[in-house]
């Protein structure tokens, strides 16, 4: 009886695994949910191509002049119909000759100046007509289009979701299992055996480590393949951040579960821990939006540290040295929480 699988730590970790994969809901919430969230938000906040504005012209000459501007979608319409279209918002602007039979070619633009689209149409239409009438630009300007991955909302969001996922899984997973085992007196039964007690706690950390590539890999792969989210930093630094984050949050989960006897009390404590970080740590929007006064507090939250480090790594390609402050915050949380968990833990 000395093979690898007969070791208590292996058996305990296997128990974690079996309890996890035999719980379909857990599988859904920890794997499918983050993807659905990222997909939904990615679609909602996707960068659209530049919009084309619909305008109308009442003479062929004006229509021809306006069509030179690519950002305008031009229709030639009889005057009455054009008037009606602009009133009902079907076109943003109507261009027509100033007065019937006038020969200087002056133009009247009908549009709503309180509508930004109308004002933009006015600018573009006037520019096109002036050029068609022979205006020369005083200086030439060339466009260089910047639509690079890394500055879009989805790029900001994916590291936030990864951090949120690590926190949720690491705190809920061990926390619930322990409270459940305590409630069912399984914890007491297990410590009545010669098994070294730290094995029991260690098995939770081990299992989180085994699950980590999945926890992080799914939202990361989804972001990279579907949205082209960049991975500019060192992959080892990224992995290291995730490992450290998992250890710190799992220690937090153990601490929360160290004395609680009911699932309800555990839920309350876990929400009390996580909700402030969901709000403050910049998952969905930058934590810089909060007042300067609370910034030092926000910076010491573990989730802020994880997300800041992930964003710096993935989006700015930050190296190890730039991630030291965040790593420091995580190590501090890990040491404090694990120390307290060991001290406070009740086995019955």
């Amino acid at each position, binding site marked *: 009886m000395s093979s690898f699988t*007969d070791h208590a730590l292996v*058996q305990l970790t296997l128990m974690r695994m079996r309890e996890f994969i035999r719980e379909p809901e857990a599988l859904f919430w920890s794997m499918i949910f983050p993807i659905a969230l990222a997909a939904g938000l990615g679609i909602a906040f996707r960068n659209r191509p530049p919009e084309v504005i619909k305008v109308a012209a009442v003479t062929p000459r004006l229509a021809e002049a306006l069509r030179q501007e690519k950002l305008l979608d031009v229709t030639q319409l009889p005057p009455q119909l054009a008037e009606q279209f602009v009133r009902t918002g079907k076109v943003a602007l109507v261009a027509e000759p100033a007065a019937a039979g006038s020969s200087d070619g002056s133009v009247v633009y009908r549009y709503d100046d309180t509508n930004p689209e109308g004002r933009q149409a006015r600018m573009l239409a006037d520019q096109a007509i002036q050029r068609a009438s022979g205006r020369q630009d005083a200086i030439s300007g060339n466009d260089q289009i910047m639509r690079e991955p890394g500055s879009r909302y989805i790029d900001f969001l994916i590291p936030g979701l990864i951090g949120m996922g690590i926190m949720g899984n690491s705190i809920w997973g061990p926390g619930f299992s322990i409270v459940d085992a305590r409630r069912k007196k399984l914890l007491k*039964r297990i410590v009545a055996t*010669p098994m070294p007690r730290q094995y029991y706690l260690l098995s939770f950390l081990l299992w989180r480590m085994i699950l980590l590539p999945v926890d992080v890999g799914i939202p990361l792969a989804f972001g990279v393949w579907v949205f082209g989210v960049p991975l500019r930093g060192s992959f080892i630094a990224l992995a290291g951040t995730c490992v450290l984050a998992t250890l710190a949050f799992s220690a937090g989960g153990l601490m929360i579960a160290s004395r609680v006897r009911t699932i309800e009390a555990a839920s309350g404590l876990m929400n009390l821990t996580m909700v402030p970080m969901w709000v403050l740590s910049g998952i969905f929007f930058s934590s810089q939006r909060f007042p300067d006064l609370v910034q030092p507090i926000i910076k010491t939250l573990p989730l802020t540290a994880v997300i800041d480090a992930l964003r710096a790594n993935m989006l700015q390609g930050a190296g190890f040295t730039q991630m030291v402050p965040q790593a420091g915050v995580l190590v501090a949380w890990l040491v404090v929480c694990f120390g307290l968990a060991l001290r406070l833990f009740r086995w019955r």
Partner: protein
Amino acid sequence: MPATAALRVRNLRKGYKDVVAVDGLDLEVHPGECFGLLGPNGAGKTTTIEICEGLTEADSGEVEVLGLRWSSDAAALRERLGIQLQETQLAEKLTVLETLRLFRSFFRQGPGAEEAIRVVQLEEKRDARVGTLSGGQKQRLALACALVGDPDLLFLDEPTTGLDPQARRQLWELIEEFKAAGRTILLTTHYMEEAERLCGRVAIMDHGKIIAQGTPRELIASIGVEHVVEFSAGNTALDLAGVRGMTGVREVRTENGSVLLQVTELHKAVPGLLDELGRQGVPLTELRTHSATLEDVFVHLTGRHLRDE
């Protein structure tokens, strides 16, 4: 008597906030015997057994298990004890085999998981999830978990509580097999049939104290009563003084409209009772007799029943 007791408890005390659970308890379990702690709920049985199992700390007193002490030899002791706790719910999503392999991995030596499954006759449920087992099967699995370390001493806390009669009998047969195999067992129960059937010696507990100790036969003999006659006279008034004066009647009690007589000689007491009732002109609506049991011992000692339901 053997040189070393399997379990020796001296003057054990344990109090909780507002109750004294164990109040100066002495106990000695010999190697190879099945010893029963019998008492009603709240008598302090579970507290006592959990102190012996090293799960609860006593306020004072001495506990020596297999010649070792919890304060200095906890690790060695855990290897040698087999424990079944009251109300443990094993992980529901694991199978029987997985559960036993888990528990087996906690011990240095002992029979394999498959062997333990065979001993408790759960072969057919080997790959069934624990959550799908019946109460009796779960309890047999709990017993198997207590056996995988090949223990020198088995602690069974209310092993049959909450089981139906058939499952209970099945569990008794298992425990009898353990006894036959020479294992030392300490079990707690509030079923007197269980204590009478399984235990070589019994200690009757009440309010944290042992109020009587001995073999079931000795205990029953100690109250000087061999039989109990229970009868009912319907609603007719009855003069109990006449009954009390009959020969061989030790004690007379009324309970729920019935009269209970503790008697030494059944063959003299029953005709005597019939004569007395005939003399008083009282009709007999019910008559039952049984040999005295541990229940009667408990009633004799405390005036209460083991199970106040």
